[in-house]
Structure formats: C-alpha cells, structure tokens
C-alpha cells in the first residue's frame, strides 16, 4: 500500500489540536463552575420569589390572612402590620424578608411568640439525625440490592430483588411507620413508640424505627437506579475488552462497571436529600418526633405562616445546594463532562 507521506502526520496534528483543552482547572472548567454557581443563585432567587409572593395569591387583606383563626384585637393588628411591614409596597416587604432570611432572621412565630430561627434551631437536630441515619441505611441497602440484582441479571436472584423492590416501593412512609410501630414497638416492645430520647445514644435508639420507615421508598429508588446503571455498563464493550484482557471478574466489576455506573446513582442521591426532608414530616408525625417536619405540619395546622415560609425555604435551599454539589463533582466522576463532550 503506497501512502502519501502526509498521512503519517495526521495523528500528530490531531493530537496537537487536542492538547490545549486538557486539565480540569482549565479556563473552561472555571467558567463551568461559575456558571453553575450563577444558576444556583438564580434558582434560589426565583424560589424565594415563589415562597414569598405565594401569600399574595390568597384573596383578601394580608393582616387577616396572617391572623386567620385568631381573634385580632386592634393592637394585635397594628403590631402585626408594623412587624411584617404590611403597609409597605410588596416589593419592599419582599426585600425586608429576603434581607432577614439571608442573615438567618425569618421573623417571629405567631404560635410560639419566639424568633422563627430559634424555633427551627431547636427542632433541626432531630430531623438531621433522622435524615443522616436514613441516608446511611439507604446507601447500604439500596446499593447492595442494586449491585446484587445487576450482577445476577435475568436470574432468579435478580427477579426476587426486583419483586422485593416493587413491593417496597408501594409502602409509603406512613404505612411503614404504622406497621413498624405495631410490630416492633407495641407487639415486641423492642423499640419506643414515641419521642426522640435524650442524649446521643438514646436518640439513635429512638430513631431506628423512624429512619427505617423513612428509608423504605428511597431504598427502592437507589436500588433501581444502581441496578439499571450497572446493567447498562455491563453491556458496554469496554467491559468486554477488560474481560478479554484477563482481568478478574471482581476487578472488572469494580473498576469498569461500578465506577462507570456512579454518575446516575449520585444524581439520584442529590434528589433524595430534599425528598427525605419532606417525607420526614410524615415519619415525625407518626413517631411523635419534635423535628422540623412535625413543626411544619403543626405550623400549617395552627396557621403560623412565617414558620411555614422559613421551613419551605430551608428545604428548597438544601435541595438546590446539594444538587449543585452533585453537579460540580461530575467532572471527577466523568472526565468527559469537564470538556463539554457529550456523554455516551
């Protein structure tokens, strides 16, 4: 085969063209991070507009909205009007609220007559503990279920796992709570039915059943994503190449299948955080835990809107921030995303 001498240099030229785009902290990388942070700020800003101005969707005057269900004396009306600046134009009310929220001041609770931040601060540890315990449970059970199913795809163990996950996915947290209370707390008496306990160890003990109830549905989510992501990778040619080179199956699974399957799993984990915070309302109500979930329900019940606003904003912020973090870790999971190359 006669070849033109210039072809030989084609590869060299291509390599030269590619060279400047290397490196994770390239200009493009910095621009990407800045873009993500800008997007985060914009999303949070738009969310805050929604949370604040939702109040204006309710017909009628704002004072009587805030004081629903209470018998307002003229003094109370005057006080509320002054405190929330209800006589100011809406955009100014918003700026005041936003300014306060940025410094951790969400105004005063109508039911507790305390600062909203204080009320929430007292309740936050229980919820965080619950979410963390659930998260650990979800990671362990969900990942292992997904991995086991994927490695046995098409076999009885896979089908069994899938059936199990389908059944679990239909057990909402309030059903899970009731069943767990009935069996392990009331019948067997192994765990308390109520409250969050005193001190760290006692708290963990009190939160075992609640964290299981909370985890059930999310285990399914993680399990299914893990399975499908791994199954997809198992069918990829690079896995076959690795196998053909004489690597042990365990090595292939770890370095080429699981590693490559991480992306979707991480993305789901980001969505999970907000889901856990919201679902904890139900679990906290069922187990009588004094967390922000039960506080939210109580505040809705007692028409304490400033607290509702604050908790909603808190959950939304948690969601947006966690997802931004997941987004930013992407280049470490998949180097192609840093270069803006399309994933395949």
């Amino acid at each position, binding site marked *: *085969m006669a070849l033109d001498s210039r072809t030989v240099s084609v*590869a060299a030229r291509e*390599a030269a063209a*590619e060279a400047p785009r290397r490196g994770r902290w390239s200009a493009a990388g910095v621009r990407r991070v800045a873009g993500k942070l800008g997007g985060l700020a914009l999303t949070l800003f738009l969310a805050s507009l929604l949370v604040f101005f939702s109040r204006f969707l309710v017909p009628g005057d704002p004072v009587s909205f805030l004081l629903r269900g209470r018998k307002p004396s003229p003094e109370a009306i005057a006080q509320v009007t002054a405190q929330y600046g209800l006589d100011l134009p809406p955009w100014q009310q918003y700026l005041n609220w936003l300014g306060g929220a940025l410094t951790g001041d969400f105004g005063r609770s109508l039911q507790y007559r305390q600062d909203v931040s204080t009320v929430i601060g007292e309740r936050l540890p229980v919820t965080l503990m619950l979410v963390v315990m659930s998260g650990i449970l979800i990671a362990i059970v969900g990942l292992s279920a997904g991995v086991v199913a994927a490695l046995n795809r098409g076999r009885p163990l896979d089908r069994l796992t899938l059936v199990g996950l389908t059944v679990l996915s239909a057990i909402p947290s309030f059903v899970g709570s009731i069943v767990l209370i009935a069996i392990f707390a009331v019948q067997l008496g192994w765990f308390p039915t109520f409250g969050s306990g005193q001190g760290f160890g006692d708290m963990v003990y009190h939160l075992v059943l609640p964290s299981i109830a909370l985890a059930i549905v999310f285990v399914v989510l993680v399990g299914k994503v893990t399975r499908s992501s791994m199954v997809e990778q198992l069918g990829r040619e690079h896995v076959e190449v690795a196998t053909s080179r004489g690597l042990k199956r365990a090595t292939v699974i770890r370095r080429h299948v699981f590693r*490559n399957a991480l992306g979707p799993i991480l993305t789901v984990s980001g969505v999970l955080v907000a889901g856990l915070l919201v679902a904890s309302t139900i679990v906290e109500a069922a187990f009588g835990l004094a967390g922000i979930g039960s506080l939210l329900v109580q505040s809705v019940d007692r028409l304490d809107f400033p607290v509702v606003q604050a908790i909603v904003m808190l959950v939304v912020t948690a969601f947006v921030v966690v997802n931004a973090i997941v987004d930013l870790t992407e280049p470490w999971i998949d180097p192609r995303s840093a270069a803006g190359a399309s994933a395949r």
Partner: protein
Amino acid sequence: MSRLLDIDGLTLELHDGTRLLEGISLSVAPGETVGLVGESGSGKSLTARTVLGLVPERSRLGGRVRLDGREVIGAPARDILDLRRHAAAMIFQDPRAGINPMRTIGDHLTETLRRCEGKSAAEARARAIELLADVQLPRPEEHFGQYPHEFSGGMLQRVMIAGALTSSPKLLICDEPTTALDVTTQAEIVRVLVELRERRGMGMLFITHDLNLAASLCDRVVVMSRGRVEESGDARRVFTAPEADYTRRLIEATPSIAVRSLDGEAEADASAPAGPMLEVRGLDKQYQLRGRPPVHAVVEAELEIPRGGSLGVVGESGSGKSTLARMIVGLEQPDRGEVRIAGRERSTAPRSRAERIAHAKSVQMVFQDPYLSLDPRIPAGRAIQDVLRLHGGLDRVAAEARALELLEAVGLGERHLAARPKTLSGGQRQRVAIARALAIEPELLVMDEATSALDVSVQAQVLDLVAQLRAQRGLTVLFISHDLGVVRRVCERAVVMRRGEIVEQGPSERLLREPEHPYTRLLVDSVPRPSWEAAA
C-alpha cells in the same frame, strides 16, 4: 506442524436452543494471518470470541478449541484467565466504545500489567510508553495522562492495539478493527498491524466484512455465512477462483476500484443534454460552536449535474459532504451561495406551505440509516400514502393503489403495505425509503450514504435498483458516499471533498485511474487491494 489456534467442529447454542454456530473448523499457525470474512450475522465475531472464552451467558458449546496447545472449551476459569493474559489478545471494532471513557489512556495500558503481572507503577508506565511509541503515537509521555475523549478514532484504535500487546500475545484477534474508521486511517492502522505482526511473529485472526481488506493482508481466508464455514483456503485461490456459490456472490457484490475499460467515460459524455438539473454556486457554510473555533463545513462549493446525470460526492467523515447534501435538500440554510434545481433558486428556507411543497417536489433524499429514517410507528404503505396525499391530493383509494405501484417498482409487494419498519430488513427499509422519495416524483434525488449501513449483497441489490430506476425514469442522482467503489458503480462523475473543500472533480473512472490532487491519490491508494495485485 504446531498450530497456535485450532478450532474443530465448534458449535454454539443459546440457552433457548437457537444454534448460532454449526461446526466451525479453522486454524492459525504462528506468523500466519487468517481472515474470517462474512456478512453481519454470520457468526464470525462469535467464533473469534469463543477463543477467549467470551461466550453468551448460559450458552452451550460443542467441538474443540485449542489455543496454544490448551483446550478452551470447558476449561476452568483460572486457565481461561491465563490464556487471556498470555496466549491471545483481541482488538475490537469500535475503540471509542472499547476503552473505558472514565479512565486515562495510561490506566488502560497499565491495568493488566499491574493487576495481572504484578508490575510496579513505574515499570508498567515505562512499558506502556514504549508500546505507545510502538503503535506510532506522536507523544507517548503526554498521551499517558490523557482521556479517551481527547483522542480521534484512529488514535484510539492505536491505543487499543497497544493495550492488546501489553501481554505479548502469540495470537492477535482483530474484530473488524478498522470498520469504524475512515479509509485513510484504516490504511494507517493496517500498516501498524502488519508491521507489528512481522516484528513479533504473531499469528493473526482477522475478522472483516470487507473482502478487499481481507485480500490485502491475509494468507488464508475462511468465509462464513449463517454460522457455517462456506469455504476456506489460500486467500488468492478463494478470491480468484471461489468454489462455493456464496463466496462467488459475495465477490460479485463487492464494489471494487480496480481500473476498468474506458466505456464509463464515453457514456457520461453521451448523456449530457441541455441545461443542468442541479447547479450549486459558491455554497458556503460555517458552524459556530460555543467556546470553540468556527468549523468551516462547506467552502465555496461549486457543482453541476446535467438532467438525468449522476454525480458522486466522495469524502471521509468531517469532509462536509453531508452538510452539502443537507443544504441542497433544504435541511440547512447556507451562509452564502445558491442552489438551483431545474433552474429555480432553492437555497432559501421555504416560508409558505406552497413553497414547502414546491421545494419537496424539486428534490428528495434517501438517508443513511434505514433503521432511523422511517417513522417506527407508521406502516410502509401509510408512509407513502401520506406523501402522495400531501402532494397529489389523491383520495384514499387512489393513494393506496399508487403506493402499491411504487412498492412494486422497488421490488416489494402488497404484503409490505401494512408492514411496520421493525418487521422489515435493512434492505427492505431502504427500498421503502426510495419508494417514498419517488412518490413525489422529484427532479433530483439525493442519496446520503444510502447503502453504507447495509451488507454488501444487500448493497449491491439496492445499487442495482437505483441504476434500474435511473434508466426507467431518467432520474437525476446526487450520491454521497465514503466508498469510492460504490460511487464508481453508480455515478459517471464524482467530486472529492476534504475539510469542506472540493479538491477535485471529473469522471469517476478518471479519478480512480489518474487522480490529480494528492488527496484523491491518497484516498485511492488507501483502498485495500489484494496483495497479489499490489505485488504485480
């Protein structure tokens, strides 16, 4: 004689009883290259994979496969690992899919050295860099830390070869290693493979659907079809004097670029009546991608096809040939220049329904992949009727009758009227696509790589159909292809494109026989030819 690989009566049956391989026998001696050729579904890849114990789950194997003196079938996992590590290695078709995109090139190369041979990081690195130099990559040290997405397909295939060589295999199995690559890149890769084979004295089992490629580098070939060996023997004997019918048909269907007599040119001159059907003047298109330099996809293209003529556009991937086609049919708007079809300006986007229909009447297109260019939900007959009713205003009955006529004209029949695309074969789908394009009775038909997704025998049928339709209907055809042999078969004239520019044009035969531009020459020279002809 001690054989490196000896396959005898190999059968493979899936767990549901489907038999995919029926008594395959072949052998490879050290230093010898054996070609395994056949169309898709012939079982050639499957045969090669059993050598490394890569078989579908729960399948049953029969017969014997001896690699380097050891039996593979039924061997314990430990022995299979050992064979994969020391006896044989495999190069796969698509390097982009075959190298883990999330790990570095260095990791790919050192993985087996470190994890199977227990080499230290520094030793493995030194060996990897040596191998990268062996496959003639320009900057091995730098490539070591790069990721696959930073490489072109040709460079990645070199990495894949280097990866296969880390174990110093005695047998190298190549599964269509150049099919995903352009013809000039293919020539480079083949050159690297041949050189390494000679230097290391490896045996090679080379799987390909391309008979020309097999003829260019194999000592012996094995022709497979539907899980059976149709014929095997000395490469020159098989290709010049085939014994099996199947082999003969395959050879006839394969387009060749071997120089023929001069009648092609005479024909072209005879059929040049007044007034060009397609006139492209100064057509120019740039793509602006964010954060990257603009890509000049088509540069000042000029071309012309006489009424009833056919023109081939040849080029490698990225040459701008598809963009040119898309501008001519109106799927893209050019930045500058004009397209005239039958004397009418057609380069501006149609604004009204009437303009759209007039545009469609002037030019139709047949797309590359018949699996994607038909709406999966719409049966063949219905697809054609929709077009007829849009353009001809026919009623339902008349449209149905006409649709059947068109299907029959492309060699299909009544039973295909209600067939959904997924029940049709690739060749049948492409026939439906052609019938659908003809329904509009366009003045110009653009075929964009319309046969490159098909097997050669099916490709030959579709090309015959196009020739027949041209003769019957006086159709004007613009034929886009990467394959010089195919273009020569269909078109009197051709243009060669490279990086958006038309570098040369002229009668197809002349371009093949005496290319003027260096790139055309490179393209022609890169097409594999039988080793006995090259030597002569």
